[in-house]
């Protein structure tokens, strides 16, 4: 081989090795890889556990660890939100192991990176169940990934607690348990909760505009289940006699928000319903501000909460929530304690908006399902755990007591609340019994 060719291949191999190292996990012993990253998490004795230690170093529980397997989008487009679930899980594992473990045994969380890809999530759960032989599983983050993973759990008969999966109608597995309190028909209940909130002001909108991300979950909320007459946010608005002056769908990876902003300005609705995700709302609001336009009222379905707070023109925007760090939610001292631990872990991991809200609350609740199912059944038998949950429900920190309805595909009622950005912070404003002190829905057409 010629020296220059040898040198070329050597460099190429070095670069490939660097790529592999960059994609690999360096958090500690016992790591293996699937896709990009695998992490074995057990609690350390320090707060905000992010380090990996061996199970035998814990002091509160003993014996062979109970291995809980799951994936999260540690990389990829879902990573910003998955970081919240990772932090929440770390705190839960630390806390439960410090208080005697599960069935007297410590929990060991086997966490794989599904890279935000449903196919990798499914493969990861196959591996977790068949090769790693985990005792329990917990769902990943993201509707697509949860849907893919649920099929695997169903095939092997594993109890499948999961958090924010939006295609509620699709989940018919008898042992799936959602911790996102949307109910089975969020396409009806969520929008009506918002519309009730608007009507509670005494000055509801007369015109409403919809901009809808083509993501399946937001399409479901806006238009209902495909090939049914059920409808969603758009038809529910029409039922209230509000004129729908704009109804436009945009691609998931929209980068130029100018044309959409111009369409909204042209339609000039009293209220703008942004059926969007992540940073859709800040991007659209900024684009509307740039053309000197701002709707009188706005709602965004599932935003990344932090970026909105720093967006000019976002004051007054509403969204849905499960929990916010203010009374009456913080009347429970345990909720305050847990939220504080999660906040600290989020801050340590560099998440800019280090506060517990919907995602962290749903994540914590899913872990509670797993814990209570095992403790209630007195074993790790999947069917026994499943039956126990269905028969007894769950007592959760952030949702209260929950009852699962098999005829509603194990969904419970929609316990969502409406929150609003006021004075630069998120506050729950509706229903009134959950509103932050001295806060109420602020909306008035025409300013």
């Amino acid at each position: 081989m010629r020296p220059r060719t040898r040198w070329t291949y050597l460099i190429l191999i070095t670069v490939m090795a660097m790529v592999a190292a960059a994609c690999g996990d360096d958090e500690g012993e016992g790591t293996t890889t699937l896709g990009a990253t695998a992490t074995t998490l057990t609690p350390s004795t320090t707060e905000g556990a992010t380090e990996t230690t061996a199970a035998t170093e814990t002091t509160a529980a003993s014996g062979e660890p109970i291995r809980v397997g799951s994936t999260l989008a540690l990389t990829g487009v879902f990573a910003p939100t998955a970081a919240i679930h990772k932090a929440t899980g770390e705190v839960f594992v630390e806390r439960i192991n410090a208080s005697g473990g599960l069935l007297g045994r410590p929990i060991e969380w086997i966490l794989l990176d599904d890279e935000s890809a449903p196919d990798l999530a499914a493969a990861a759960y196959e591996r977790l169940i068949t090769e790693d032989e985990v005792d329990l599983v917990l769902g990943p983050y993201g509707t697509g990934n949860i849907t893919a993973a649920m099929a695997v759990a169903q095939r092997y008969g594993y109890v499948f607690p999961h958090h924010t999966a939006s295609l509620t109608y699709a989940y018919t597995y008898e042992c799936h348990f959602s911790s996102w309190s949307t109910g089975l028909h969020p396409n009806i209940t969520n929008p009506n909760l918002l519309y009730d909130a608007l009507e509670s002001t005494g000055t509801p909108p007369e015109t409403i505009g919809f901009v809808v991300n083509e993501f399946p979950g937001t399409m479901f909320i806006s238009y209902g289940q495909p090939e049914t007459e059920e409808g969603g946010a758009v038809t529910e608005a029409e039922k209230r006699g509000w004129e729908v002056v704009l109804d436009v769908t945009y691609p998931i990876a929209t980068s130029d928000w100018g044309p959409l902003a111009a369409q909204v300005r042209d339609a000039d609705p009293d209220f703008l319903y942004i059926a969007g995700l992540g940073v859709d709302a800040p991007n659209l609001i900024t684009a509307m501000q740039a053309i000197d336009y701002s709707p009188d009222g706005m709602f965004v379905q599932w935003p990344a909460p932090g970026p909105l707070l720093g967006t000019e023109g976002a004051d007054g925007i509403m969204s849905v929530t499960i929990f916010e760090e203010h009374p009456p939610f913080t009347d429970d001292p345990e909720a305050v304690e847990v939220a504080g631990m999660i906040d600290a872990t989020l801050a340590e991991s560099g998440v800019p908006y280090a506060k517990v809200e919907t995602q962290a609350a749903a994540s914590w609740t899913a872990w509670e399902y797993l814990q209570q199912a095992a403790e209630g059944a007195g074993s790790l038998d999947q069917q026994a755990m499943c039956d126990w949950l269905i028969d007894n429900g769950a007592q959760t920190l952030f949702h209260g007591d929950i009852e699962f309805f098999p005829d509603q595909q194990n969904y419970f009622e929609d316990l969502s609340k409406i929150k609003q950005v006021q004075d630069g912070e998120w506050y729950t404003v509706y229903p009134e019994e959950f509103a932050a002190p001295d806060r109420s829905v602020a909306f008035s057409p025409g300013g």
Partner: protein
Amino acid sequence: MELLAQGIVSGILVGGLYALMSIGISLSWGALKIINLAHFSFILLSAYIVYQLTVSFEVDPLLMVLVVAPLFFLVGVLVQMFFHLAKVDEFKSLIITFGLFIIFQSAMQTIWSADFRRIGPVLNPYETQSFFVGGIAFQLPQLVAFVVALLIAGGMWLTFTRTYFGKAVRAVAQDPEMARAFGIDSRRVAVILSGLSTAFSALAGVFIAIGQTMFPELAVAWFGIIFPIVILGGLGNSLGTLTAGVIIGVAAGVSSVLWGPLSAPLVTFTILIVALLFRPEGLITKRSIA
């Protein structure tokens, strides 16, 4: 009518930003035969650096041009020197620069986490500033980006057609061996051009930081925009790249306001395919490098 006009204006201006993002990779591909996928991560990395310096030192983000442009010129120089060392050709460049892209993505996620980053309105008053002509908004960040793209495209065209360096670049692009035989230091030319290409990408990053919310995966979304512009404009053709950027931007903007945003990718790629059927070498070829 105003809606259509706004769509056209927004499309032209955003097309300028797209062109600014594309010029670097077009020059690299056309002149150096390097398909540098790492350009996408250079744009994003520049945006993150602008974000970090702006937030940490509370300075005007536009001033960061003075920091990132020379910094990334050096980066481009070093990268090209590495390519020389590794005897990277067009095919190998795809593999190696994809590896660099992954490395930079991981580094950015490690440093800034996977969460969203945006310069707030206090430090970034530009993001919502516009001036209006008859009700049509000209957004300031995009307008400045368009002007910068115009200056760069025009400047590079003049350079390639009026200067010895430009002639040297064209000679190296056509036949590096023959260029060397005529006394042109092809390595030096390549290094300088690579530095310029990467600096141009860094300039695009400044406007990304001003106008968008950043997260590590953002660069992936640009592949579907930048490559059509690069191909449509002709490899190494800076004016062609600007033209293509405007065409793509206007097509996407007009189709969005007329038929909804979902139609924009369909229209964009239809234009690309039809254009390549009739002009496979790109829209403007008379002044291409190669």
